[in-house]
């Protein structure tokens, strides 16, 4: 089990789903907070739902408020970077670039990318934590 969880983690890193920040979180985990990482990740996914939704709503607006979109995406990016969600962060940056160019279509496409990476990460981390819990 432990080996499995370790290898899962390795893969996540290898595929850029996670980055160094995730390690930082794991280092914070201690006996007093044995599930710290999982708690933080859960908090992230819970909280970012509303951010994602806000972006969706903002994108549906006509005309598009790029300032607000950029702001919202900045929040998503900040949040995801704090847990080490590398791919999600990358997609957020792409979105912000399109925002700067005021390219609404580009934004919409990039947003799809964000949502996709976000969903994928969630699935993978859920699985990872499950294994990790069983391993401990």
């Amino acid at each position, binding site marked *: 089990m432990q080996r499995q969880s370790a290898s899962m983690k390795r893969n996540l890193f290898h595929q850029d789903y996670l980055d160094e920040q995730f390690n930082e*979180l794991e280092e914070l985990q201690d006996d007093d907070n044995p599930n710290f990482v999982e708690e933080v990740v859960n908090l992230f996914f819970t*909280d970012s739902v509303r951010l994602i939704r806000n972006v969706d709503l903002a994108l549906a607006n006509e005309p598009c408020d790029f300032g607000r979109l950029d702001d919202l995406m900045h929040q998503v990016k*900040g*949040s995801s970077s*704090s847990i*080490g969600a590398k791919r999600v962060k990358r997609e957020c940056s792409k979105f912000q670039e399109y925002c700067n160019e005021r390219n609404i279509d580009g934004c919409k496409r990039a947003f799809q990318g964000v949502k996709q990476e976000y969903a994928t990460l969630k699935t993978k981390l859920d699985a990872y934590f499950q294994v990790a819990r069983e391993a401990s």
Partner: protein
Amino acid sequence: MNLGVGSVVKTMSGASCSVSWKSGGSDKVSDQFPAGLRVLVVDDDPTCLMILEKMLRNCHYEVTKSNRAEHALSMLRENRNGFDIVISDVHMPDMDGFKLLEHVGLEMDLPVIMMSADDSKDVVMKGVTHGACDYLIKPVRIEALKNIWQHVIRKKKHELKDKDFDQSTSVEDGDQQQKPPEDVDYSSSANEGSWKSSKRRKEEDETEERDDLSTSKKPRVVWSVELHQQFVQAVNQLGIDKAVPKKILELMNVPGLTRENVASHLQKYRLYLRRLSGVSQHQNGLNNSFMGHPEATYGTMTSFNGLELQALAATGQLPAQSLATLQAAALGRSATKSAISMPLVDQRNLFSFENPKLRFSEGQQQLNNSNKQINLLHGIPTTMEPKQLADLHQSSQSFVAMNMQGNARMQQNNALLMHMSQQQQQSSRAQMLNETNNGQVSRPPLSMSQPAAVLSRNSIVDNVRGPIYNPVSQTSSMVDFSLNQTTELQNNSFPLVSSNSGMSTLTSKRLLLEEVNSDIKGSRGFPPGYDIFEELQQQKTPDWGLPNIGSNFGASDHSSIPGTLDVSPSMLVQQGISSMKKNGLNGNSPIGGPQLNLFSGGNLLPVKAEQLPDTSYQNTFFPEQFGQDDLMSALLKQQESVGQVETEFGFDGYSPLDNLPV
């Protein structure tokens, strides 16, 4: 390190009050410093907040978290000594992180670290100009947090140096200066504790004034209103570009002040000025925020005319009658634009900064001398004659008569907000008195001038300029804040710049004040007193640190009055009054409230916005302390005795307030 020092890690999600160790904490952790460092972390992102909290706790810091800037600010205000350092995100929905930064810097003078996922140069630069002591890029790593204690020490050390001045009149200098080095022994936090306590001890040893001055619980150097006024005046005289610490020091001629003190203060001031010039005025914002500021007991600086009066009245500072009078007068009068520099009550006087006996009159003189027009006491109703009051009032602030004394003219013209800042020259005051002898203004007996911010709104108009201002200008730091007013208060700017030049300054200031007034309203928690000075001083729309406040100040082209003006007059008044009482009529209590450390060169003025609860705040106004009614009566008395002013007050040296019948 273990947390065994008893640090309580408080984690809150924005709702509870933080329990802080206060200074006790530092003593406790002395052996384990930086363990136990009390950190307040503010971020709207719950994920980040949770991570940061954990990281900080792992560093053995005492952590309080908040996801709302407003809440964090109120926690800080409630518990000024409860935190050592603040970490804040830049982008937050309820308040811009930089605004929070400014507030904290101005009011509490705590080191603030900004953080953001945004690493663009502009944003980082903004952090620098606003006075952040560091900027972290998210995601933040624990390594970056391990060393944040250095900012705390650095700041304390800096303050300690500045404090030398405050604490010592002359003798202690040497001792004090030696202290910092000793105290700053970072290797052991014991030093920190002892440093603080020794500082305190020193304070206690000092004369009353000093004690009062350093009443603040924190061992930070406080640039009192009066002191700052002197500083600003000196800088104005030299010209901001040519103002070098050495010359400023000479001009200020304050015993015990070192060049280093001035240098660091100047640096901050410059930052502040720079910021102001780049900040748009938030006219209304200031006022609003100002009003909202919990500590702004000054009473919002809302439209001076009506609101202020009302506020004043409400605060009891302004007797209803006066209020009515003022209002009536104000309505009837158009504020002449003269730059009336109400003699700022010498803060010193109020707080017995250096001379316990400084009376109001003295303070006023000094105020007059200093050019600062500080709209210290917004709400302080001056006991000016109705007519005069009206004048003053244009901005509707009755200014504590104290200052008014000298400024008969000022009163005439408009409500002058006199900031009871340090008065620099009694002579000017004397002159002012002379002027007022015209009968225009019945100067309120000096006794009035108790610290309570004699804020006379100087809507002194040009006419005043002539006669009165000459003298006034010399001394006055008239706080001419008619900040709230959009009118003529023109004198907002530091009135008095030495003798005639003051007039022009006043005028400009006035404008500033007007603008400021509007701004002030919005200002939030503008640290009282100090800000005012600053504002008055020169900045255009002082956005001094105070998010709202500064910007509005004197939006007009003139020197924007530092956000300080925002302090609602009433606040000032209150403070002044209270301080007066406390200090036994020191006379000029410059805008009370937090020590006027406000001047934020950059954004944050080292204002110790601490409201000293009961101590004689010499530097601060604590409204509660003084009976505003008393102040009012004093003012009234003073006014009546205009003619006698000279004799009474001994304008050549204002008779100590003590003598003034209160």
